[in-house]
């Protein structure tokens, strides 16, 4: 029983580590950094816990029960604390480092508590040693494993058939590490993909509670269900602790059953805060209206409203409907049209509007770019990783108004796969490559801003082919912009043409600067934007587009290009409003 409990609690502890690593990655970005820091902190905290347990009364086995109850309480509360830290309007005098340290405290506390477990279990197993006999099948399995491992190890180590000092430790540690492996597998293949991050922590806490209840049922003096005469280990615990444990179990069971509602509520709370933080305080409020998670990303639709005292210049009307993929904005009502005019209509003035023109559309799972391309009558190969998102958007009321069922276009071929896989597997050449991708808000997407990716794109371009993409403003995201330009240049795109889309989001009759776009060519300057060949939008802005011309892609000193195996994290952008610190 103790070995089984060791396996369960180790499963929980290791899975907590992964949950917190992922949570901190979502909060602060940088997968390698957050996973590395969290694992390091967790392991060192395990050591602290193991050291501190020397102060425990080794006759009081209830300490193990208490540890499990405290873990079950602290783990979810710590998770919610980190969420709160990233949404609360904290005093600006607080240094950013202090917030970062506070966000790691739950990891330390969970680690210390987890550090108590192994020494306590070892102590109990030693106490129990010899007094209990495992079931027959366990004995037989144990003999097989023992014989095999003895023979293997004898080849390279000094071995001893007789019982040694290591007997007790090795079995408990084996179950502990096995539990860790199970924790990783359960989290990776079951909890995270099926439930998501938030419900996972509650499910793990539920498991901790169940382990505590199992321990009580087996070893408690007052509430054990086996005869005390059968037990070497007995303990007594306050009724209040048991009640607390049962209450937590009931709560977590309820949360696990209603996990979708809980997930929606907490995700909505966090995302609304994140969206509002991208604007000055109290100027924009956000309200999530729909959300779901696919295997690849979280999709959120929301309404934003203007609460500022000055006249709203963001959008016309009372509110604006927007869509985000993970935390990156995909589109809003106020600029959906102008964005796609810029992405599609502007470069299409340079190419024949017929099926003789081959276009590769990367991303664009909302089908809107495909709709604009359909209007130009070109041949389109669309590659998008998220098939579930594409399927859902076909019948989305919000998006239907923009895509007009473009997925039915006769000259559209869709490939649901990773773009790297597609580019490596095709020898087709394209006249125009359009990148309708999410923003560089996490290192998950750094490979789409890499030398390798752009090199592959360059190889798939026809002689007068170009790549077109929206881009982050160099004025606001200077470090990103410079790293990006150096990356694209390194990939062979020596020339670029930069232009804006224009729109009038607040309907005051004045065109405003909209999205920034870049056109890249690896073969020197190509033809320029030709408004007479364009749509009404392009013709209406012909003066501005006629003035746009090719120039050399900028190159900057002291800034490394981004490569898949040598990433430049300066490419990752932070869009939240932050306070400058000296």
């Amino acid at each position, binding site marked *: 029983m103790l070995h089984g409990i060791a396996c369960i609690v180790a499963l929980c502890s290791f899975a907590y580590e992964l949950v917190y690593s992922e949570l901190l990655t979502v909060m*602060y970005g940088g997968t390698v950094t957050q996973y590395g820091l969290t694992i390091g*902190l967790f392991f060192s905290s395990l050591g602290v816990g193991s050291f501190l347990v020397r102060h425990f009364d080794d006759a009081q086995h209830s300490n193990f029960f208490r540890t499990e109850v405290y873990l079950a309480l602290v783990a979810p509360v710590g998770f919610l604390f980190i969420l709160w830290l990233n949404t609360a309007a904290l005093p600006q005098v607080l240094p950013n480092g202090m917030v970062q340290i506070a966000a790691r405290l739950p990891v330390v506390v969970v680690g210390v508590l987890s550090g108590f477990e192994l020494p306590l279990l070892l102590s109990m197993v030693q106490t129990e040693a010899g007094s209990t006999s495992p079931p027959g099948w366990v004995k037989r399995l144990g003999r097989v494993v023992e014989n095999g491992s003895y023979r293997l190890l004898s080849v390279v180590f000094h071995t001893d058939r007789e019982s040694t000092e290591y007997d007790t430790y090795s079995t408990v540690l084996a179950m502990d590490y096995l539990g860790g492996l199970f924790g990783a597998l359960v989290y990776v293949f079951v909890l995270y993909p099926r439930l998501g991050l938030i419900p996972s922590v509650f499910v793990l806490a539920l498991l901790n509670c169940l382990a505590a209840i199992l321990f009580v049922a087996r070893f408690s003096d007052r509430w054990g269900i086996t005869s005390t005469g059968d037990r070497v280990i007995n303990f007594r615990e306050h009724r209040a602790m048991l009640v607390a444990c049962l209450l937590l179990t009931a709560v977590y069971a309820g949360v696990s059953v209603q996990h979708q509602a809980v997930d929606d509520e907490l995700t909505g709370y966090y995302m609304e805060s994140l969206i509002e933080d991208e*604007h*000055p305080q109290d100027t924009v409020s956000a309200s999530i209206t729909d959300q779901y998670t696919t295997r690849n990303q979280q999709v959120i639709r929301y309404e934003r409203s203007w609460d500022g005292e000055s006249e709203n210049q963001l959008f016309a009307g009372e509110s604006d409907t927007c869509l985000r993929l993970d935390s990156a904005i995909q589109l809003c009502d106020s600029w959906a049209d102008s964005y796609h005019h810029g992405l599609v209509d502007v470069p299409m003035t340079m190419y024949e509007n017929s099926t003789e023109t081959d276009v590769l559309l990367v991303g664009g799972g909302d089908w809107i770019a495909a709709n604009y391309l359909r209007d130009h009558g070109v041949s389109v190969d669309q590659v998008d990783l998220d098939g579930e998102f594409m399927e859902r958007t076909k019948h989305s009321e919000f998006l239907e108004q923009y895509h007009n069922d473009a997925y039915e276009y006769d000259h559209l071929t869709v490939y649901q796969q990773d773009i790297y896989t597609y580019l490596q597997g095709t020898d087709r050449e394209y006249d125009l490559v359009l990148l309708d991708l999410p923003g560089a808000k996490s290192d998950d997407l750094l490979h789409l801003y890499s030398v390798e990716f752009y090199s592959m794109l360059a190889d798939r371009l026809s002689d007068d082919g170009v790549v077109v993409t929206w881009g982050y403003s160099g004025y606001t995201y200077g470090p990103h912009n410079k790293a990006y330009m150096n990356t694209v240049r390194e990939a062979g795109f020596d020339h670029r043409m930069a232009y804006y889309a224009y729109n009038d989001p607040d309907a005051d009759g004045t065109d405003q*600067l909209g999205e*920034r776009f870049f056109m890249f060519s690896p073969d020197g300057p190509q033809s320029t934007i030709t408004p007479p060949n364009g749509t009404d939008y392009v013709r209406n802005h012909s003066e501005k587009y006629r003035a746009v011309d090719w*120039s050399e892609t900028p190159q900057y*000193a002291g800034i490394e290009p981004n490569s898949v195996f040598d990433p430049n994290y300066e490419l990752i952008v932070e869009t939240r*409003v932050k306070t400058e610190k*000296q």
Partner: protein
Amino acid sequence: MLRTSSIVATGGLTAIAGCIGSNNEPPPRKSNVIDNIELSADGTTLRIDPFAESNRWVQSRRDLEVNASAGPTNQTRDNGSTASLSALSKLSPVGTARAAKGRGATGRGSGGYSSAPRTANGRAWFWGGSYTNGWYDDHDDEVSQYPVDIATLGVAYIGSNARFEEQDPGPGPINWDDTYDSPTDAEIETSVQELQPGWYRVGANIVVAEGPDEGTDLGWECIDLRVEQTVDGKEITERWKVSPRI
């Protein structure tokens, strides 16, 4: 995203220091483009005085083929003010640049002008601070100074103080009310009529002045001005140098 732990770090709380969310952004670029901006004698319009061609330059990390001089000069040097910028909060990009994918959060908050770092010309230096000298010293070999011409000068009314506080446009061009192509060194009296209280932006689109890369666009250098009605008439009470990060 499915992901598994892949790195065992060395551990320890000291690992936190310097590894989590530290801001290592470069400072705004130094430049000498617009010498002075004043109100006309009757207070109805702006007078813009660019630097003489021989004194006009910008610092950049762009690799260009010009007769560049390496390293920083003192012209836009932080005057040693260690005033905290904590009173300045970055505002959203809303201003006049709308598209939400690529335009991000920048800006100034309410107040803070008196404590903001200063350029050698006495203007508040947006994104400036005591960290700038150290950064320029550490990256001395990456920075070059290029002589520039002004391709276009632009003037625009941003809006009232309330609008500016909530919808500061951040560095870069905006929809100009007035533009002047290839202005000379002479002072320009703008045709902006009926100067009103609020915020104005004067921007200069600068290009490399000489060499094989002559004409290369180096973006916009801007000055934001606050015009207020005082007992003595209209006055420019705040001047901010707004440059992109180098």
